[in-house]
């Protein structure tokens, strides 16, 4: 039973006595109730506004993960949380794609950039609305259109997510009043609250629409720009980290003196010893072996085996595909960075021969071998066929093989009997030699087990050791002096070119001209002429010592001692040898021995790894020296042009005699330009060496070259080059002999140019052109997209004040209401 207040009830009872009185009393009660209607108030809202932030975002992602597992486990999830799993899916998907792409990236920078790109994409997606929509909207309109709230069900949502479902009571009156003040609407005016809400609603809708409209452009643009901005920094960080690690390992340390030799050692041996890689494809190999355990090892078998061992080199090498072989070897060690240095090896015959030997080793039980083995016993086999199959035998070798297969089948069905039968047949046919019988019976039974054991041992013991050591070694090598961009030496080289470009003060237009003029780089030559002639003019009055001092300042590139030390350590044949030395204990079979030779080679043997790495180091060093040498030749030329010596020399060589000038085919300026392009453009020198130019021009050009490259004029520059040669522990490395180089260049005889990398490295103008083109590409990309982004931002910002206009929606204050 529900009761009402007795007092109220009693009063009602009394009032019921007289209807008239009662009605009056009810009216009084009613009036009293209406006066106190507001004694009750709506309950406080359950929805609460909340503040976001990175920590909150992380928390939400974790929550999404939990919800996902909950959904999988229980099948229970709110629609909102189900929708949010989409976000989680995107993040996980992006991570997965980035991981996949990173695993296939050729450089560490590329790999890192896959993740940076993914993260940047999400950051852009999140930051674009925050920075360029929400923030300006907040500044202009006084509220956050990205406001979040927690619903009564505990779900976190965007307040303005659904423009027709806005939990307004989560905003307090004070908050609305404040927003109203900011937007010029008096909260206490008629319909003030509704107007403020409508303005917020409209502003949010317009801004969110703007967000949707711009996000498709803004997100990729911001992602790309940020990625572009970050990539060089990532690359430098990768280089520095790799280089630092390499230095730590290869720098001799006192710690290693404990072995009593007194010779400081590096941590290289320890580092390599810990570099074993995982055994690969064991299950696949076992499966393959099982499949072929009693079968003919055909081409397909070898192909599959080579794939599983990641050693597809063997057969190709036999076919003499040198380049392919190198690539296969490169694949064998699976490090993209390794390819370039190995390619530089100019791998020669011994290497390929060794590979052939490996192939021979593995080919013992190949079908061909079996056939060969059987060739010598064709007759007895025919007899055997006759015996076993009870048929006549007139077969070709091919048919013999087929017959053998049938014999094998018979053997399987009654092994002992037929084996004995075969033996008898062979004996009856005069084959009594046990060794011959052994060969045949082995071949016929296809007992591959020994071969399989060898391969398995190789795969499970030798290969992981060698692979691991080789990979680790090459990682160090690449960090220090690899040809790929992620090495210290490459960084040094590029920095030098960048310095020159910077000095040339190329603007965008210059870069464009340079990049568009291709490899001949004639325009570049124009810039370089100015660059060197300025220096030449500036220094033409200096004495030799002052001139050398100026040169040192002008040609700043050099290897520091740490770098030289690291390079030296890594090309030390003893250290290279340690790649296989340490792995010896893992296995000692013929394959291992041959592999040892392939990788290392005998000391200083051409084609051996040790020798190759040494050569490679020299190349790297020479490429830097070449920059200096080529610069010096250019400077020398410009100095001689500036002080008139070159003109004088031309006259002396009678290259600008009256006769020459008379026929109007050449004048001094044209001759000068030709001479200049010869100096600046290394390809010209190469062509000259190959006889492409010299033969046509005859003595005239020969004389011209001899004039340009007259060693007598290069005394100071040659001294400078010698004096500034790179050194390790004050032990100078052999520098280029500039006089010898110019003599060679002048004589049109390549063989007279020192066998170094002077000619093989890029010409000066080529290097500058290449680098300028890279910079131009970056800049031209930026010139398209930066303005586009800026325009997008500008439009996004400029439209903000026009949002949230509600004047037309509230034309007049209709205070009395009324139906129309």
């Amino acid at each position, binding site marked *: *039973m529900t009761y009402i*207040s007795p*007092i109220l009830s*009693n009063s009602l009872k009394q009032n019921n006595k007289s209807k008239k009185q009662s009605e009056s009393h009810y009216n009084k009660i009613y009036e009293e109730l209406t006066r106190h209607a507001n004694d009750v108030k709506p309950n406080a809202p359950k929805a609460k506004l909340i503040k976001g932030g990175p920590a909150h975002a992380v928390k939400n992602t974790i929550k999404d993960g939990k919800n996902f597992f909950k959904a999988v486990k229980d099948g229970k999830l709110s629609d909102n949380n189900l929708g949010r799993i989409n976000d989680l899916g995107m993040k996980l998907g992006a991570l997965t794609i980035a991981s996949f792409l990173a695993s296939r990236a050729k450089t560490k920078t590329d790999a890192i950039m896959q993740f940076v790109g993914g993260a940047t994409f999400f950051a852009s997606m999140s930051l674009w609305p925050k920075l360029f929509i929400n923030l300006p909207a907040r500044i202009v309109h006084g509220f956050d259109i990205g406001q979040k709230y927690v619903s009564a069900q505990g779900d976190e949502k965007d307040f303005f997510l659904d423009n027709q479902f806005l939990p307004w009571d989560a905003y307090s009156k004070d908050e609305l009043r404040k927003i109203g003040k900011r937007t010029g609407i008096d909260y206490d005016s008629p319909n003030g609250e509704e107007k403020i809400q409508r303005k917020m609603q409209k502003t949010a809708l317009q801004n969110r629409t703007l967000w949707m409209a711009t996000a498709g452009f803004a997100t990729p643009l911001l992602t790309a720009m940020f990625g572009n901005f970050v990539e060089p920094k990532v690359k430098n960080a990768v280089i520095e980290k790799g280089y630092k690690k390499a230095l730590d390992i290869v720098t001799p340390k006192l710690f290693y003196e404990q072995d009593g030799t007194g010779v400081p050692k590096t941590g290289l041996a320890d580092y390599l010893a810990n570099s074993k890689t995982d055994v690969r494809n064991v299950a696949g190999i076992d499966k393959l072996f099982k499949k072929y355990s009693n079968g003919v090892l055909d081409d397909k078998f070898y192909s599959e085996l080579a794939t599983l061992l990641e050693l597809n080199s063997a057969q190709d090498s036999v076919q003499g595909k040198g380049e392919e072989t190198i690539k296969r070897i490169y694949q064998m060690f699976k490090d993209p960075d390794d390819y370039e240095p190995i390619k530089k090896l100019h791998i020669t015959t011994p290497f390929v021969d060794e590979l052939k030997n490996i192939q021979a080793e593995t080919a013992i039980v190949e079908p061909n071998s079996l056939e060969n083995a059987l060739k010598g016993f064709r007759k007895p086999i025919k007899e055997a066929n006759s015996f076993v199959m009870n048929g006549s035998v007139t077969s070709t070798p091919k048919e013999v093989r087929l017959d053998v297969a049938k014999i094998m089948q018979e053997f399987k069905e009654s092994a002992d009997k037929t084996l004995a039968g075969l033996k008898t047949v062979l004996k009856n046919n005069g084959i009594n030699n046990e060794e011959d019988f052994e060969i045949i019976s082995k071949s016929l039974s296809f007992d591959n087990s020994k071969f399989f054991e060898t391969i398995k041992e190789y795969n499970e013991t030798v290969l992981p050791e060698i692979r691991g050591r080789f990979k680790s070694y090459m990682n160090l090598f690449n960090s220090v002096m690899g040809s790929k961009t992620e090495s210290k030496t490459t960084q040094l080289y590029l920095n030098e070119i960048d310095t020159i470009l910077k000095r040339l003060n190329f603007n965008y237009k210059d870069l464009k001209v340079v990049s568009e003029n291709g490899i001949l780089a004639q325009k570049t030559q124009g810039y370089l002429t100015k660059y060197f002639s300025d220096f030449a003019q500036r220094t033409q009055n200096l004495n030799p010592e002052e001139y050398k001092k100026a040169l040192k300042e002008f040609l700043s590139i050099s290897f520091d001692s740490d770098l030289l030390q690291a390079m030296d350590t890594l090309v030390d044949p003893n250290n290279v040898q340690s790649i296989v030395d340490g792995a010896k204990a893992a296995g000692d079979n013929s394959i291992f021995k041959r592999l040892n030779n392939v990788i290392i080679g005998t000391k200083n043997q051409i084609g051996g790894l040790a020798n190759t790495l040494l050569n490679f180091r020299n190349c790297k060093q020479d490429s830097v020296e070449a920059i200096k040498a080529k610069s010096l030749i250019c400077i020398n030329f410009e100095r001689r042009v500036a002080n008139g010596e070159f003109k004088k020399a031309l006259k002396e060589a009678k290259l600008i005699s009256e006769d020459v000038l008379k026929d109007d085919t050449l004048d001094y300026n044209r001759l000068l330009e030709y001479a200049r392009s010869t100096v600046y453009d290394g390809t010209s020198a190469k062509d000259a060496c190959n006889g492409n130019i010299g033969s046509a021009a005859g003595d005239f050009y020969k004389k011209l070259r001899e004039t340009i490259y007259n060693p007598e004029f290069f005394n100071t520059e040659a001294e400078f080059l010698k004096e500034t040669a790179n050194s390790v522990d004050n032990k100078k490395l052999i520098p280029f002999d500039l006089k010898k180089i110019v003599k060679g260049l002048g004589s049109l005889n390549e063989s007279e140019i020192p066998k170094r990398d002077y000619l093989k490295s890029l010409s000066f103008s080529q290097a500058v052109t290449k680098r300028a083109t890279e910079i131009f590409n970056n800049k031209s990309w930026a010139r398209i997209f930066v303005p586009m982004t800026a325009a997008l931002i500008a439009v996004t910002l400029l439209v903000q004040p026009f949002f949230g206009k509600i004047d037309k929606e509230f034309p007049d204050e209709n205070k009395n209401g009324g139906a129309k």
Partner: protein
Amino acid sequence: MSINNVRLAQVPTQTVNIAAPKTQVKEAQEIKGDYQLTMVSPLLAQMLLAQSKKVLANNSVSSVQNVTEAQKRVPGYKNDLRDMMTHNKANIIAVIPRTMNAQDKDGNELIQGDEISGNFINAVGRLDEIKDLGFNTQHVLPIHPTGKTHAMGTAGSLYAPKDFLTLDPELVDENPPEEVRKRVAELYEQKTGKKLEKMDKNDPEVAFAQCKYYIDECHKRGIKVMLDLPSCASVDFARMHPELMAIGADGKEKVPQGWQDIRMFKSFIDEQRRILNKPFVDMLKKYVDMCVDLGFDGIRADVGRARPVEFWNVIINYSRAKDPQFAWLAETYTHEDASPQLNMPYDRPQELLEVGFDSYYGQYHNYSDWTKADVLYDYVKENIDMNNQIGAKCGPKSLIGSFATHDDQSPMLYGGAPWVMFTTILQSMLPQVNPYIVDGIQTGDFYLYPYEHALVRDSETDNHECTVHSGRLDIFNKSRKPGGNSPEIAQVVKSAFALRDGRYNELNPNSKVKLSMTNAQEVITKGSFITLPTNNPEIIAFARHKDGKTLLFIGNRNINLKVGGKIEIPGLKPEQKFENLMPSYGEECKFQNDGQGSAVVELGAGRACVFEIDDKDIEKLSKAENVLQQKYL
């Protein structure tokens, strides 16, 4: 009972945020002495207390309740609908007098020409049938004249009233039987003091008198009657009473999204300060007066959230001043942070209950989407928890078994008769629920009308299209009497209600299964709700338990497939047999006691069964989290 001993904790409505000068509060407290009095306002308390000093008598509350006109008209009748609803004892049927007993002669299902539509008098012809099924409460959908402008359907939507304070003249029978005429004339004379000259439908007092006659006939049969109060007004009403209507800040009338034939009321004259629009409240005060005068026992508030708590604070309390047992049912569903419907406030059931509503719709209409038993249990828990949380200050609150309301498609379309029977038995066994069935469903009406969207020449409105919301009860046209071709549903309704009313043996004399407990009604309306662990999430298994007596519900909510599983029943005796108290329908069910405290069952599609089991300790032996108890009953 001494008035000093009257328990006051359940005084309704005087609940939240009393704000009054301290001196007034203090004075009120001094006057009330030992009473735990919580009043609407200190001022009101002060006034009433002053009066009570003079006339206070030592009577129980029930004895001091004012005798209403309806009570005087029907000897023995007394309104206790509020108690019934809050204590889960109302078995409700929703009816539309306009169609309730209409006579469709040509079979086109639309009442036209000389066909007789439903009215107050012929509706009486169905009351015995309704009573026989066990219904004790009617939810009468709106009975006011309908708006004719921008109308939906040819008769106008029931929820688009042209006037709130008169009754639809179309519900008047101008040629009733003689004895009815006499009684109506008496009622007419009592009200107007004039003799009834002609049974003229255009005389509003005739409609009032006939309505009273209908209500009295309900009361005579022990059926309480709730009137549906529309939340909005028709366009015609809005044109006549612009001062009552809501105008948006854009200067336009507020139209609830999707309902172009109606307009919103202006509840506040000053929305920011939440000052009520007095003329509007006045009109609803008169509405309450009218309802009490007619003899209605309560009001079902259409779209409860359409009016603010301050409004209900006045109107509900006012109705209670006139009739403390006046019941209020809110059409409110679930807490919304914001309204998804344009121009409509958010839904907040809890605050409507706190301000005085006794019962509410809830979310059982979504049950067809709840494919796992856990979802149902969670919802039962959610509601019991809410009531237990607010019950201390506002007493028990209940839901209706809103598995299908007139706003929903016929449940026949979802799963046919088995589904209706399943949900009927289920809602009759759930705690905190008053079973609720829309007229016609008890015999399997699909609410599919052949005239749907047909154009007709004769229309009472400006619309000649027979608007119908497909599969839903027609509230826009004069349609045929609701009903279908599945009489077996009625048998299930009868059995289920007989069980929950504690009259199972009496009303099922031929049943082989006899109920041994005598307190079945107590078990179902007050007992604990114990969910039983199963190994099949589609099986719904729960026990209702009170004072050592236990009823067991086991059902398969899958209407397509037979399911099997094992149900743990803590305290189940090995010798316990399972004898279904409900009528059997559809596929056969098998029950086996495994002797180890579990029942192994195989349940036909859509089958629901109820068993009495001898399990005194089921509540103690069950895990605490599986036992729910509605407090404050």
